[in-house]
């Protein structure tokens, strides 16, 4: 089977081998978890914990389920999957989420 070495690495994503299975079949279930879609983000949402009222609006509106609640009950962004749509920034009722330009 032909293998292509992916040359570019983005952020913390390790160089990965793409195996060209016949007909592009993906034999391992759930492999999309390995694909970090956050790499194409232009703006990153940053939650200011001091302002956050824990209303869960950002968690509900995120189209990619990239907002998670940590063990201490704080709302956080999973930057591996956040594509930077900024819906959370727009919807936050107390303006507790800033947008910051990604610099690579």
């Amino acid at each position, binding site marked *: 089977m*032909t293998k*292509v070495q*992916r040359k570019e690495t983005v952020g913390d994503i390790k160089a990965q081998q*793409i195996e*060209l299975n*016949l*007909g*592009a*079949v*993906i*034999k391992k*279930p759930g*492999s999309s978890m390995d694909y970090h879609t956050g790499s194409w983000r232009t703006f990153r949402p940053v939650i200011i914990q001091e302002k956050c009222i824990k209303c869960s609006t950002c968690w509900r509106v995120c189209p990619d389920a990239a907002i998670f609640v940590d063990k201490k009950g704080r709302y956080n962004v999973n930057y591996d999957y956040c594509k930077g749509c900024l819906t959370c920034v727009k919807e936050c009722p107390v303006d507790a989420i800033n947008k910051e330009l990604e610099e690579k």
Partner: protein
Amino acid sequence: MKSVVEASEAVALAVKLARVKVCPMYPITPSTHIPERIADYIFDGEMDAEMIHVESEHSAASALIGSILSGARSFTATSSNGFALMYEILPILSGMRLPAVMAVANRTLAAPINIWNDHSDAVSARDQGWIQLYAESSQECVDTMIQCYKIAEDKKVSLPAMMCLDGFTLTHVFENVDVPEQAQVDKFLPAFTREDTLDVNNPKTFGPIGFPDSFMGFKKQQQDAMTAALDVIKKANSYYKKQIGRGYGDGLVELTDMGDAEYAILGMGTLCGTAKAKAEELRAKGKKVGVIRLRSFRPFPVKELQAAVKNLKGLAVLDRHISLGSNGPLFTEISAITPELKLFGYIAGLGGKDITLKHIESVFTDLEKGKQSREWLM
């Protein structure tokens, strides 16, 4: 067993003999008799298969994806505008490397609406990754249909294949056909197996996105499979000949009277029968003429064609289709591989226009005179 059947029934018999399990069908003239016969076989208990009465040809082709992924040998048939409606799914079947087999009862594309034969439907899909074999007789339809499964399912190929048969000229004409025995076909064509199937206990993803870093790799694999198919088609033809007793040229190209020929006609499908009849007549008068019948349009057998035309003084290519704004596609492709050869291209038999012995004679006369009198055989 010899039977007098029309080519539509010959195709249906071959589908039954190939032990096809799923047939998503949507009828359209002139392919309709094929699903009709298959429905008869299923209803009479002669064939153990599921016929899906889909709502369109687009759905028929889509259902092939699911049925093959579930591990079932599958079949459909269509023509003309029905074929055009399938178009979106054709490259998906080939890209997913699914060995579907389809009979295309060739009919032109509207407008003006016309139910008769030319190769516009199938030839216009030449770039969509399907193997395309063109049959000349009802007998060849039975034999080629069975070979199509052998070729498409070969692990080196794993591509869909269409068998093209001229609408009405074959589909609705009764001929004596020698139908192979089930035991012979079972020996030639083992049961269909697939490594990757839809299985809840072993989930896999089929038809995912291909990003720019992998997409070209997949296309290259398809092209390599097409190249490998050249040899597989030849082997299927010779193995069939050995097992069942009939073959068609080398499987890719069929040559008639080409040994010492100076002039020849090249075409696909039934028009070659007319050309052979005229060539035989001219041979009796001492003219050195022959006929090249292209059986495999995709993959395109470059080496075999170059060898066939090597000693010719002139070749006429008869296209039953025109790429409007350019030329006959067959003519264009032959031109590209025979730069030294004197080549005439003719557009013939569009929308059911008969290609007569007189037409063929005028083409041979043109070749002999070294001057093409006309481009459209009307």
